[in-house]
């Protein structure tokens, strides 16, 4: 196990180096002259030169690359170009906001989708099954954008069930007042594909020999479903849930923009609009690292959930 872990971590190094190279070349080589962006619309030659000197842009490219690598490992990306806040402070401040919304979405989506998937798989092939699958297909084909725009207008503006938008400094106010509508709308969008996927996992397992054996020895259908089938179907379901984790940190760009939630997603979109490269660079690199760690975690989880899996 530990040799496996060590080797996997060793294998991550080239990928991580690649991500860093990609981000570096994307922003430092193709990204245009940051000094010109920073100096603003009316910039004198001296000002641009001063900024170039300050950012180390006059140094050869490998020195700049080295600066970037040091930035990544010291968690010090300097200050945002537009607000002059430290990038690390921005990330630490915004990530919990995104998570306040997205963790709830993630949990509720898992609970609702798994429950419904098992319930529908009980009656596979029946009218209920086909009706639910039909609704899922229809729901999936409508753009997230339309759900958000119409949902905000209908539920918040017209019916006044929720505030139209906003965010406060108090965690409980956010959870009880501002988060429910975004969460509800995101659930509308995310449950349909999850439900379809999980149903296919469960149905695949119900056809296996062990399920038949369990029924043959007289286990009730409930016991077959929840003890035998769900345990086996849990492997792909947990994988799927874990792989969705890195996305949670970014939150949903759309939902954060539309509802004015000051999370990471909104920060990234604003940074893109303002050409605030340090913020985008930092978030991209750290999320890639996080995603790699999650991938490793998934493989280890596999082993725990299904002892037959050989880790090589």
């Amino acid at each position, binding site marked *: 196990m530990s040799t496996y872990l060590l080797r996997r971590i060793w294998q991550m190094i080239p990928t991580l180096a690649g991500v860093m190279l*990609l*981000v570096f070349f994307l922003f430092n080589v193709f990204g245009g002259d940051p000094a010109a962006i920073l100096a603003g619309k009316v910039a004198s030659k001296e000002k641009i030169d001063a900024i170039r000197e300050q950012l180390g842009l006059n140094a050869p490219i490998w020195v700049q690359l080295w600066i970037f690598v040091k930035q990544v490992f010291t968690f010090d990306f300097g200050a945002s170009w537009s607000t002059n806040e430290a990038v690390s402070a921005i990330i630490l401040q915004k990530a919990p906001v995104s998570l306040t919304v997205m963790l709830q979405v993630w949990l509720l989506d898992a609970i609702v989708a798994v429950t419904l998937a098992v319930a529908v798989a009980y009656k596979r092939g029946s009218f209920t099954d086909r009706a639910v699958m039909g609704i899922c297909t229809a729901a999936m084909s409508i*753009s997230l954008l339309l759900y958000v*725009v119409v949902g*905000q*207008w209908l539920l918040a*503006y017209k019916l006044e069930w929720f505030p139209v938008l906003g965010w406060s400094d108090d965690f409980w106010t956010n959870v009880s007042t501002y988060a429910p509508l975004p969460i509800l709308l995101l659930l509308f969008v995310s449950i349909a594909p999850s439900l379809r996927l999980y149903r296919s996992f469960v149905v695949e397992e119900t056809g296996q020999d062990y399920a038949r054996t369990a029924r043959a020895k007289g286990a009730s259908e409930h016991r077959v479903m929840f003890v035998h089938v769900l345990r086996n179907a849990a492997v792909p379901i947990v994988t799927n849930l874990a792989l969705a984790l*890195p996305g949670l940190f970014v939150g949903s760009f759309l939902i954060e923009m539309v509802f004015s939630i000051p999370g990471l997603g909104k920060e990234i979109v604003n940074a893109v609009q303002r050409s605030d490269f340090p913020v985008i660079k930092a978030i991209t690199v750290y999320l890639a690292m996080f995603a790699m760690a999650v991938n490793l975690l998934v493989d280890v989880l596999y082993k725990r959930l299904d002892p037959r899996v050989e880790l090589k």
Partner: protein
Amino acid sequence: MTQQQASYGFWRAAGKRLWADKLARFCMAVLVVYFLVAGAAGMGWVAKDWNEEVGVSYANPSFLGDDYPNPQGKNSIISQDVLVIDEKQKAVDPLAPYYEEIEKNAAAYEKAEVKPSWTLPLGGDKWGRDVFDKVIKAGQVSISIGLASALLAVFIGTVLGALGGYFGGKLGDLLEWFYNIFTSVPYILLVLAFAAVFGKGVSTVILVLGFVGWTGTYRLIRAEYIKQRGRDYVMAANAIGASHGRKMFVHILPNVSHLILVQLSQLVVDFIKAEVILSFLGLGVPTDSVSWGIMINEVMPELVLGKWWQLATVAVVMSTFVVSFGLFTDLLRDALDPKASRR
């Protein structure tokens, strides 16, 4: 004389399977209409004047008539005071003696004034542009972005996948490294990072989506090439001295082309959805142009004013296209690649 019926070729058989399905035929009919209209808009035959202010601001849709409440409509509660210039006015107006001269001079620049219409077929937007023309033009932009970026992504994915799968070894490892890099960053974040660097514009959106979206195709084609390269027909081609390039693209490629077609179809839908979201966030198509995403972007303040027709139009038009294309992709996959699992 009885003659044995020759069995159909692969494409013919797949085409027949697809045609036999009523739903597939219906989807194809819908898609053909969309592509024809988009093509006509691209040639400038229809919706050329989408940017003209042909109606009043928020003109009502024709089916509601001009009696439907509209601040600028006939039954408007706001009425303009018209100043009547009579003798008493003229006595205090310093310009009064010059009116005739002014009017005479102005006549030289007389232009036929287009009276903005109170109603438009599907209503008007804030600037009085015809929503019907707009949605056609927007469809042309969105569909062509989806098609072009999907072609680019599939091209990159196929070439890299073919190289990686066919040669393997060091080159294969290098390409796998590329693949790992691109897949370790969440997709939408990578799109935004590319968008941040390359700026705005139609061609940028195409490049960004194409450069970021090739990974799925690469994975699929690479696996397929690894499977195919040991087959007898490739050995036979090798025996008669075919070059690597010939074996890869003349011998093997036709055998995986059905997968490429399905992939292309899938990516068009995905990229149209992505473009809509990018444009909505203000990172895609520039605002002097129009796309479905930009139309939805304009909708939010309109809804508050009770002007729902632009939203309804774009929602119906876009959803119909996406649903038809999505269903068509599924059916195409069933017809071309029966073994593929459907999720």
